[in-house]
Each structure stands twice: as structure tokens, then as C-alpha cells.
């Protein structure tokens, strides 16, 4: 069985120059994580793809130039890069275009991990099986994206209670859908 290189080994190999296999492995490993981060913070698949491209290019450039002094902290470095990019409200198109022009061809094609498919009819049945308050919390949370205090006001309970109801409802839904809780 082939053992995957550690993060630190990847950093060292990329820093030594010209190791395309290590760069491809870096991308395979980190791209899905960056994409998830982007989806969560930007709430938009296209924006998440933009973040993915820019964050991976920035990481690649940094590693090629040997700028990551603690190779074992690769994941923290990529996360920090993502945070800076999201918090900084973009760094402007010029830097991105410069990176893309210089290194864009080096990026492997982005392949998204498969999105789990849910049976809509089964979910409907599972939602019907929930208690009234659980159903309201789940719908308000995921459809309406209401804050805990809004949901608490609607239900006439505390925010802590909303959290308990939400957790229980999600667990029951996942069990009903046949996904491990």
C-alpha cells in the first residue's frame, strides 16, 4: 500500500523545485478544504471557486519560494491564507490576474468532491416525522437562515433551547435518512 506523503514532506518537495507530482498532491489534498471554507463564508459556489483558485495559487507560489518556515503547518498556512482573502474583501483583481498569468497553467483542473444526494421524498417524510418545534427550527434554520434569537422569539424558548432542539432534529433527520449521526 502506498503511503501518502505528509504535509511537511509535500512542502519540502515543492520547495526543492520542479516536483509537479507533489504540487498535484497538494492541490488534491487542500482544494476540497478550501472550497468548503469558501462555500461557508461566501455562500456562493462561483465565489468559492474564485477563492480556491487564488488561495491555491498563493500557497503554491509561497511554497515554491520556500516561504513556509514550518512545513508541518501547511494546513494552518492555507487556512490563514483563506481567512486573509475573505476578511480582506478581496485584494483587487490585479494581484489575482498577475498570479493567474504567471502560474495559472500550473494548477491542476479543479474537481469538486461529489455532493451527497438526498432523496427529496424521503426527506419530506422525515421532516413530517419530526415534532412540530423541531420541524420549525430546521426550516427556519436552513431555509430562512434565521439567527438563534429570532428562532427563540418565534418558539417562545431560550436560545440554548433552540440549540438543543436543532441538534436533536438534525440527529433525527440524519438517522431517518440513513446517515450516521
Amino acid at each position, binding site marked *: 500500500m502506498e503511503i501518502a506523503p505528509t504535509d511537511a514532506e509535500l512542502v519540502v518537495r515543492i520547495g526543492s523545485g520542479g516536483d509537479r507530482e507533489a504540487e498535484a498532491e497538494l492541490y488534491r489534498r487542500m482544494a476540497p478544504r478550501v472550497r468548503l471554507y469558501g462555500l461557508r463564508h461566501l455562500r456562493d459556489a462561483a465565489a468559492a471557486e474564485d477563492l480556491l483558485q487564488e488561495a491555491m495559487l498563493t500557497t503554491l507560489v509561497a511554497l515554491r519560494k520556500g516561504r513556509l518556515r514550518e512545513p508541518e503547518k501547511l494546513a494552518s498556512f492555507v487556512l490563514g491564507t483563506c481567512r486573509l482573502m475573505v476578511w480582506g474583501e478581496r485584494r483587487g483583481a490585479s494581484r489575482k490576474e498577475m498570479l493567474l498569468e504567471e502560474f495559472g497553467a500550473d494548477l491542476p483542473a479543479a474537481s469538486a468532491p461529489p455532493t451527497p444526494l438526498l432523496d427529496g421524498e424521503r426527506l419530506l417524510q422525515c421532516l413530517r416525522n419530526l415534532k412540530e418545534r423541531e420541524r420549525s427550527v*430546521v426550516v427556519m434554520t436552513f431555509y430562512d437562515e434565521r439567527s438563534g434569537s429570532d428562532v427563540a422569539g418565534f*418558539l417562545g424558548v431560550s436560545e440554548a433551547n433552540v*440549540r438543543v432542539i436543532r441538534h436533536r432534529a438534525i440527529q433525527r433527520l*440524519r438517522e431517518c435518512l440513513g446517515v450516521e449521526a
Partner: protein
Amino acid sequence: MSCRSPIDAARLADYWIFAANGPDEDAIEEHLFACDECGTRLREVIALADAVRRVAREGSLRMIVGDAFLRRVAQDGLRVREYASAPGDSVQCTVTADDDLLVSRLAADLSGAARVDLSLCDERGVEQQRLEDIPVRAGAAEVALQESITRAKSMPSETMIMRLVAFDDAGRERALGEYTFHHTRSMP
């Protein structure tokens, strides 16, 4: 490699909806950047959230809703057919092909109720289903019930009676109101 400290789906859902506090959010993000197993679980939570959103937009769920929900569906361009009813009222109602959601607003004095049930009865008043312990906001003057629009579009002309029942802290039952809806089928 198996994750040694997996993050459960409920906590990941908190993270997804921005309900995790700062330190917990940071810890979850750091974990997700080192653990694909939990990343997969987060993708499942996101898929669940997307599917719930789709189901809610289809209007197929019978559930108690609030004004915030109704404002949101209006923003989404969905057409809501609403019927308002006071205790003792009898309402003529229908749905058309253009309607996306169906909501009944039941006026009631909810003060002092520790728990409220909504009883759904046939035209003879025989209970067919009871929605127990429905969410009601303190001080609210009505309950808004979303009926399944898919069911309403396919059902024949018929009469349905709804009853709101309150329970106080001692478990004593009190009728809040009875509402009669005469549904006329308008779709072929």
C-alpha cells in the same frame, strides 16, 4: 485515516449557519483543514440544508410558520395564498395552479397558554390529526399554519375544521377557537 476526534453533524450545522461561537468556529475550521472525514460530514450537512430549502420552497410541508418565514418566501418570489379566520368563522377557500404556498391564519388569544395543540378534523368534527405543542410566540394573536399546497391542489371539495386547544401549567385544557374551511376544488 480515521478521525480521532470527529465533529458531529449538529456542531457542524452550527458552524454552517454561523451559530458557533468564535473560539469554537476557529477550532472547527482548523480541524476541517486537516480532516477530510469531517469535511465529508460537513458536505452532508450542506446537502441537508439545501434539500430542506428545496422542500420548504415546494410548500409540501404542513407546519406552523412565522411572519419572518412568510417575508422570506415573498422575497423569493413565491405566491402565498392566505386565509384569515377568527374563532367561529367559516371560510370559503380554494387554491389555483399559480399558488406556491397555502397559509391559514387562525386568530386566537394565546395568553397564559403553556402549550398549544392544533387539532385537524373532518367535516363532522372528528379529529384526523393533532399537531402537538406547536410553536407559538408569547403575546402572539394568531397561529399561521402552512398547509401542503400539493395536497390542497389535488384534494376534492371538502370541509375541514381546525381547533386550537391551550393547556395551562397544570395541564388543564381550554378551547381557543374553532375554524371551518370549506375547500372548493378549482383545478381540473
